[in-house]
């Protein structure tokens, strides 16, 4: 038998019992390296040894391949290897599946090209405002402070915890335009449970002011006599993400005598309520 054949046979015996293929190949390579090192050492120490003799002696010093094989098989548990392969396949498949949404669903993909989609609301401003003159949400609530039409802007930061979710009244702004008072309120629902993010319903929000006026919203709202647009609404396009949903309440014709506006939410009983203080100049 050729020295190489002996070596191969020894390596086959020593690693044959390792059930997981990638481990078997790795251990085989490592053992082959040890054998070569041992052979080289023997030939350096005993220069008279032939290649075959050095190979035989190295194999003898390595030990019984069957015994080594048993120990190695116990050490290299196959389930861990299979689990590793399975986890790799799973990660790649789910990644490809997810990427395919971008190609198949395009703009319909959640948080895709929707202009109101955002991973998180960092600035506490809505993505869109009901301000009809084209002014941005930043100008509506913050601006540079000297807009003549803006009578008030505030960050009430009121939060109520309801059924494990946080409902907040983050921003308010009061404007005077064409002889009418307009109130803007930015509400947001936050929850880490992205699979059941809270939602507000326009028909469940009752808006009243200190004068006893009731402001019907949406289909029940009075309309602007010129444009026919509803004056009061709860707009749900104020931005959304996996962990939040933004809403903007717009009251288009607020009573100038009103000192505060109360928002009561709930179909039968009130689930939460916020009060917006209307103090001019409290920017």
């Amino acid at each position, binding site marked *: 038998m050729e020295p190489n054949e002996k070596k191969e046979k020894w390596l086959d015996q020593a690693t044959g019992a390792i059930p997981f293929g990638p481990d078997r190949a790795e251990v085989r390579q490592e053992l082959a390296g040890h054998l070569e090192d041992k052979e080289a050492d023997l030939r350096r120490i005993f220069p008279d040894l032939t290649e075959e003799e050095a190979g035989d002696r190295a194999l003898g010093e390595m030990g019984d391949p069957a015994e080594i094989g048993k120990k190695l098989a116990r050490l290299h548990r196959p389930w861990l290897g299979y689990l*590793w392969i399975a986890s790799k396949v799973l*990660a790649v498949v789910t990644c490809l599946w997810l990427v395919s949404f971008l190609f198949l669903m395009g703009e319909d993909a959640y948080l895709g090209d929707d202009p109101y989609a955002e991973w998180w609301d960092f600035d506490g401003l809505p993505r869109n405002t009901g301000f009809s003159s084209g002014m941005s949400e930043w100008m509506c609530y913050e601006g540079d402070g000297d807009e003549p039409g803006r009578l008030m802007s505030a960050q009430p930061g009121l939060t109520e915890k309801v059924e494990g979710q946080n409902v907040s009244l983050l921003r308010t702004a009061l404007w005077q335009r064409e002889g009418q008072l307009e109130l803007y309120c930015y509400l947001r629902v936050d929850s880490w449970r992205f699979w059941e993010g809270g939602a507000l319903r326009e028909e469940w929000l009752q808006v009243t002011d200190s004068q006893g006026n009731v402001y019907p919203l949406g289909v029940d709202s009075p309309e602007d006599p010129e444009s026919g647009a509803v004056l009061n609404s709860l707009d749900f396009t104020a931005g959304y993400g996996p962990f939040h949903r933004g809403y903007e309440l717009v009251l288009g014709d607020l009573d100038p005598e009103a000192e505060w506006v109360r928002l009561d939410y709930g179909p039968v009983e009130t689930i939460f309520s916020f009060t917006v203080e209307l103090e001019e100049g409290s920017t």
Partner: protein
Amino acid sequence: MREHKANAGPAGPEASKKGWEGPSLPRLGRKGKIVRNLLLTAVFAACIWGQYGCPLPTAELNFRRLERQYFMEPSQIVFTQSGERDFQAEDGTWLTLSRTAVAGVGEEWVALGYNQRAEGPMNALDYFPLEEGPSPVPMGSMTLWWVPRPGETAVSSPLLLVQMPEEAVSGELEVEVTYRDREVHQDCPLFDLGGGVWLGAVDTPEEGYAPDWMEGGSYCLRLYDAQGALLLEQQGIIPEPL
């Protein structure tokens, strides 16, 4: 044991050959790689689940989620129908609802969860006032198919009735609805589904109709016991959602 070599920065001839490499992450063992891959899989799977609208395995679980989404207390589920599956009334009549629907009774309301779309998880939840006795819940966005006699199928709009007395074995339901300036008066078949829940089959208008076409109409309900004696007579308005 594998060694972790800290990056030495751009100095030296080796660095100039390979170029500067940023701080390297520690090399993971097999267990570490498995954990990392499974974590990545979980994140990807959660995103995929989100893309499908986060469906839950049962209609009841989807209904409970909708209740939490609208900040409502959990109601007592009295009716569940998943998808377009046939079910049988107490009198043996076969019925089919076009969409998944779940109804629950709360302290002052009846919650009706249903699917507005043909696919995906249940996504709509309406609340109707709960009356002292039997309470009607219009299901105008759904279609009810039922078999009046073998080989024949009737198509109707379902009207769910909850809190029906257990002693009732038969009943009559008259419905009067004015829809698009046309008055519709009809006697509707009633099906006892058990557990105090009945289903009325209201004939739909001939032309196209809106899901809320029944709401605001009046009804008269008469229930009879096993001896055929009148048990209850109730008149009222088919409610709109709260």
